[in-house]
């Protein structure tokens, strides 16, 4: 192969990142615009443009800036967080079935949130107690898996699965004993519901920070995906890196669950779909997950609030209904 060809291919590497990420950014923007215009009252694109420029009538301004935009941005952030957390967990556990909830995080968060709801407490307390539950569950799982000082991916995974099953039983118990009038709210929370999302900025800020933090780790993650010994032999400080991934992925998931309840499938399906199409370079997969996960959840939430408007569906149902067939199709078509 000639030097010129090699040079061209080396130059092509940044472009290999630019094309998919550019495409996904466009898709994300399109989804966001769609989510702002469609709804119980639809807004014409010109009206949307006017509002975004700071003009337009008061009604459209309230509808778009105070109702739809925060919700859409929250959906985007939550989807991005979940997909990234999933991609990180899959590398950490070197298991394609890992998802953000596999370590019992959503279970812990749900028990926290449901306890607050049972006590009749409101919005901010529910979020706070969900966050506390998620972190408590993380510490519990890691403490148990780490107990004897030798945690392995399979040990961590098993501990997480068992703890999650325990939380599941607690949740069922709580649902069984809770008064009927509180049940719908609790069920919606369990299936994921963005109407709880108040301000999109904390999850969006976290998503951005983690993207910047994780992308320079990308190549180390690529090496780690080949096993800890191989990674150590190639100069990766394996234990600190694994700790970082674990903490970051837990934080991402806790923030997502706190914002929108437990939304399934995004964290499992999005990273896999992207890997099937884009290959396995984490430097590409992680930012792509942020964009694609966000896009998927924005679209799913738009559907959730329009399909049987003015009633709303839990967004988790839509992500599963969209995600499962798409994923199965891609898997079937893949090599």
């Amino acid at each position: 192969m000639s030097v010129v060809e090699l040079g061209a291919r080396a130059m092509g590497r940044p472009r290999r990142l630019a094309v998919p990420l550019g495409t996904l950014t466009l898709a994300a923007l399109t989804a966001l615009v769609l989510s702002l215009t469609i709804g119980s009252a639809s807004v014409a694109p010109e009206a949307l443009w006017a509002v975004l420029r700071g003009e337009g009538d008061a009604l459209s301004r309230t509808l778009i800036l105070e109702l739809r935009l925060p919700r859409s941005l929250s959906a985007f952030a939550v989807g991005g967080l979940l997909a990234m957390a999933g991609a990180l967990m899959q590398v950490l556990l070197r298991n394609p079935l890992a998802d953000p909830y596999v370590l019992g995080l959503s279970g812990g968060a749900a028990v926290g949130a449901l306890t607050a709801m049972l006590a009749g407490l409101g919005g901010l307390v529910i979020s706070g107690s969900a966050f506390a539950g998620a972190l408590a569950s993380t510490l519990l799982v890691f403490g148990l898996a780490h107990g004897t000082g030798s945690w392995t991916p399979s040990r961590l995974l098993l501990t997480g699965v068992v703890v999650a099953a325990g939380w599941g039983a607690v949740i069922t118990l709580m649902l069984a004993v809770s008064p009927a009038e509180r049940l719908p709210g609790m069920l919606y929370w369990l299936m994921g519901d963005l109407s709880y999302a108040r301000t999109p900025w904390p999850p969006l800020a976290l998503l951005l920070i983690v993207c910047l933090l994780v992308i320079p780790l990308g190549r180390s993650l690529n090496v780690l995906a080949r096993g800890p010994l191989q990674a150590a032999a190639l100069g990766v400080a394996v234990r600190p890196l694994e700790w970082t991934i674990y903490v970051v992925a837990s934080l991402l998931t806790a923030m997502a669950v706190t914002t929108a309840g437990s939304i399934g499938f995004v964290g499992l399906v999005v990273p896999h779909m992207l890997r099937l199409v884009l290959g396995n370079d984490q430097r590409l997969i992680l930012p792509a997950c942020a964009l694609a996960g966000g896009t998927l959840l924005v679209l799913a939430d738009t559907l959730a609030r329009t399909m049987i408007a003015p009633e709303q569906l839990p967004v988790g149902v839509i992500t599963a209904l969209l995600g499962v067939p798409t994923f199965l199709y891609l898997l079937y078509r893949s090599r």
Partner: protein
Amino acid sequence: MSRLDIRELVIDVPGRGDGSALNLRVEPGQVWGVLGPNGAGKTTLLHTLAGLRPARRGDVWLNDRPLATMRRRHIARALGLVFQDRQDGFPATVRETALIGRHPYLSPWQMEGGDDLRQAEAALERLDVAHLADRLVSTLSGGERQRLAIATVLTQAPALWLADEPTNHLDLHHQTAVMELLAEQAAAGRAVMMCLHDLNLAARWCDHLLLLYPDGKARWGPREKMLVPSSLERLYGQRLATAEIDGAPVFVPVR
């Protein structure tokens, strides 16, 4: 130029006594062969020398610095390890796999550049797997994977090669080609230490030998002193017949 200083080293094989502590120095230009029966601790020794597992006692010094105080990244620039077994996590192509050999040299924000790619392509070419560059590793045969693992370390370009059964799964031609490559590395001023099961490869290609006995005892020295049939028979618990072909001794197990 890199040298490995092994001082009073006792490797940690669970449930085994200390045996003899290792005191030896792997100098540039040398090719060391590690011989011993199954379970004698050959792989454990190589992993200990690479700093991947703690020793029970003693130290390993790399270029006059204790290995234990060095950062992994710096170790990986001087010392490369060909593993005996490999796990495939996520699917990856042959080219991507060879390219991770450049990891210790690149900063976190840096992408692999033309030079890195050129080194990886040259290593694939050298190991006769360049035609597989775009294939997924999971579709390769055992011997092709073995050559890819060696190509990855060649891309890493360490001054010190540790190789765990580098001829595993290889056909006769590629066994010789790989041993030639390692001898070439040593001739260029690098050092090689490899575990081998094939006495005859060790007799032909290594200039120093380390014999590891199952009880933890060990003997080491220049090849001529170590290739004594009686001591080799004791090492493997196997009777051997000896002949000479092409100027090198050949050992054949007999009943």
